[in-house]
């Protein structure tokens, strides 16, 4: 068999380099994007605390069509996972620390969020 092997000659070497290059570009992009500061100034920022396994406030309000940043501070004595199926976020919040999650603009409605490690802890985001 004498057909030329072209790119197919050393697939793992070329592919490996290609993938490494792509990964490096991606990492550089992320580094640049995060250095800018992740949360835009025109987002609505809502804050709540988690204490004695209750959110305070348990109801948040935000206008429709605006990106939202929700900050939660864990004042429980145990790690929590701040999560919402409706709003599509999940983030571990260690004891004593504050976590921020960015939520995409929402239509009017009532959206549920909770502590995945303690399901009795429930809260709602209300968008009029």
């Amino acid at each position, binding site marked *: *068999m004498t*057909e030329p*092997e072209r*790119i*197919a000659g050393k*697939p*793992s070497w070329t*592919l*490996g380099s290609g*993938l490494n290059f*792509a*990964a490096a570009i*991606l*990492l550089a992009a*992320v580094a640049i*994007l*995060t250095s800018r*500061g*992740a*949360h*835009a100034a025109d*987002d609505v920022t809502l804050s709540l605390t988690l204490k004695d396994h209750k959110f305070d406030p348990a109801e948040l309000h935000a206008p429709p069509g605006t*990106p939202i*940043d929700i900050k939660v501070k864990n004042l429980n*004595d*145990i*790690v929590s*996972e701040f999560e919402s*199926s409706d709003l*599509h*976020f*999940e*983030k*571990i*919040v*260690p004891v004593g*620390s*504050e*976590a*921020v*999650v*960015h939520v*995409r*603009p929402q239509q009017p409605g009532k959206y549920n969020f909770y502590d*995945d*490690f303690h*399901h009795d802890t429930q809260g709602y985001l209300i968008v009029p």
Partner: protein
Amino acid sequence: MLAALLIVFREVFEAGLIVGIVMAVTSGVPRRTVWISGGVAAGVLGACVVALFTGGLSELFGGSGQEIFNASILGFAVLMLTWHNVWMARHGREMAADLRATGEAVAAGSKSLAALGAVVAIAVLREGSEVVLFLYGVAAAQGGASFAMVIGGVIGLVLGSLICLMTYLGLVTIPTRYLFGVTSALITLLAAGMAAQAVAFLEQAGILTALDETVWNTSWILSDSSYPGRALHTLIGYVDQPTAMQLIVYAATLAVIVVLMKLFASPTQRRPHIAAAE
């Protein structure tokens, strides 16, 4: 006990689907159980390490450490799955004929075991770190692991492992000549789903906010937090409210993998008339 059972079951179930697929994909390749078990063990160890360093990790990158970590390891898993598919497209066609055939086919399968082992480790690490954090947290708060918690965790582990077994058994009933095509497709969809999941983490961190419109809402048909929804989420990347960016990255990942597989396919596949004439 129920809380521990449910959390352990849910996370083992999601990781178990991936382990089951990888076991089926490597069926017939020698020592693959060693590599995959190694991947699971590495994942468990990694989960403990991640759980230990969660505090520090969360603070990195201006509070976006968790999301960037998750997006990065998912991205790495996508690269590993892509490599596997392309490698098998180059060398694995022979395996479609007979999984226990030539030394070259078997050797080809072995080379991708490290890549698939890494994918398994990543899946177990991601799901496992939540389990470790939860169980450790509960134990610490109540002054030690209660018997109920341990039992709940063990039952959850057993049930979740059953899912892995069922996935594997279901896949290996596929006739050999179709198995290669089916597993390639499964791996491609798995990779596309993971890429979209990585995007979701970056959106959650507020790093990637372009094209964040919700394109459709199928939560009334199947919620991605229900068990069938989670299965579909793990297997093909189903999300009930995808953003435009997630869909674009999903489609792009599918396209890139398919194109790379065709580009690197073995010469006899690309020019069957020449091979026949030899």
